[in-house]
């Protein structure tokens, strides 16, 4: 019920309606509840036929960057564990 889908504005009409692209599907939505001015190319959240907010691109990019760093940290940890396991095998081999 409260789900909402990120969409991109492709056209804005005179009667405060916008055409949006939701993963390749074009739909019409009302901009009556939008607090900010929106432009073509903006990302917005859609709920039951209305745009409800603009998605903050800088915040989204920042989150994705944090995840990228976490992934790198995990990969490094995994590599370290593999090397340590190898070392242990080597040492066992020498005994």
């Amino acid at each position, binding site marked *: 019920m409260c789900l*909402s889908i990120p969409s991109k504005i492709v056209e804005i009409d005179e009667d405060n309606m916008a055409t949006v692209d939701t993963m390749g599907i074009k739909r019409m939505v009302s901009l009556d509840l939008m607090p900010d001015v929106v432009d073509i190319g903006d990302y917005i959240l859609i709920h039951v036929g209305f745009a409800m907010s603009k998605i903050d691109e800088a915040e989204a990019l920042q989150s994705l960057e944090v995840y990228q760093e976490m992934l790198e940290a995990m990969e490094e940890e995994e590599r370290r564990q593999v090397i340590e396991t190898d070392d242990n095998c080597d040492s066992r081999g020498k005994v």
Partner: protein
Amino acid sequence: MNRLQLKDLYSGFRDPDTIKALAWAINDETKKLKEPLKIMEVCGGHTHTIMKYGLKQLLPSNIDFIHGPGCPVCIMPKERIDHAIALAQIPDSILLTLGDMIRVPGSKSSLALERAKGYDIRALYSPLDALKIAEENPDKKVIFFAIGFETTTPMTAAVLEQMVKRGITNLYFHINHVLVPPAVDAIMADGQAKINAFIGPAHVSVITGAKIYKSLPEKYATPVVVSGFEPVDVMQSILMIVKQKNEHRADMEIQYSRSVTLDGNTKAQKMIEKFMKPREHFRWRGIGDIPLSALELREEYAAYDAEKIFADILPTEPIDDHKLCICGTILKGLAKPNDCKVFGTACTPNTPMGSCMVSSEGACNAYYRYGEI
């Protein structure tokens, strides 16, 4: 800075490797936890994500989820479904509602069964369609059975605004819009669920702003993290909660920063304020009466208020659930769907006995679809 692509807003927050990295970080951080975590995800959308992506299986055993009351279809008491049915049976009427509402059983029937009998009952994609239907059917009484939490309330208000602007006089509203904070307070006041952290709703908060949860950490010493609905969002929110616990903090934090601010959508809030006011009493399915937990139309709009105009045909007696259905206990966070005797046997999504099985956001429906956790 790379410009964001639309697909990043989906795939970036559903990435399996990121989910794995977050699970790894949570498992590491949880080693320091002093007490088990009982996290209430208030909103059914989060329940759905936790089940769909099997997130519980990625987490240590000392993190448990309590599924909250944030499912507007689930909390609708039977007497109000009977209202919808009575309204649909008015001669020359068209009854409109949203989503799964049509399938929820009332005391004797559901809107879907009444539709099969020939009554004009329609499930809308958007409340905006109500305007078109009213204009195209000037001789009919068009009644919108409006449901939803704070996310969906402004859309009803926007329809009211347009209705007044266009001079439409045959559209009526039966308002069932409910509020998150009083329901959470009622569950915490009950105290039985032993919740010690909250995942705050995503799109309710887009409208209201995260400010509505600011009192929770103060009152109950519980962390609250307002989370997006994607699996990466939920995992990051859990990590934020565990970190707060380890640092002995109880704060309100926003994980869903790409869409939620402290103040929310003030235009939508003003639109609601113009047409609606808090209702003195509203009975929640399973939870019971919670004062000031829902909205009603202001007196100025009484001519459009279906509850006032058609008061003489609307039943007033509260009606309890089927005695085998434990939906109410689940909504209070005191039981899981598989504690129910009729779960998956007499009660399935095709033959729901209770509202938690009807809605795709209901805990029973999610457990049935994605398997138990």
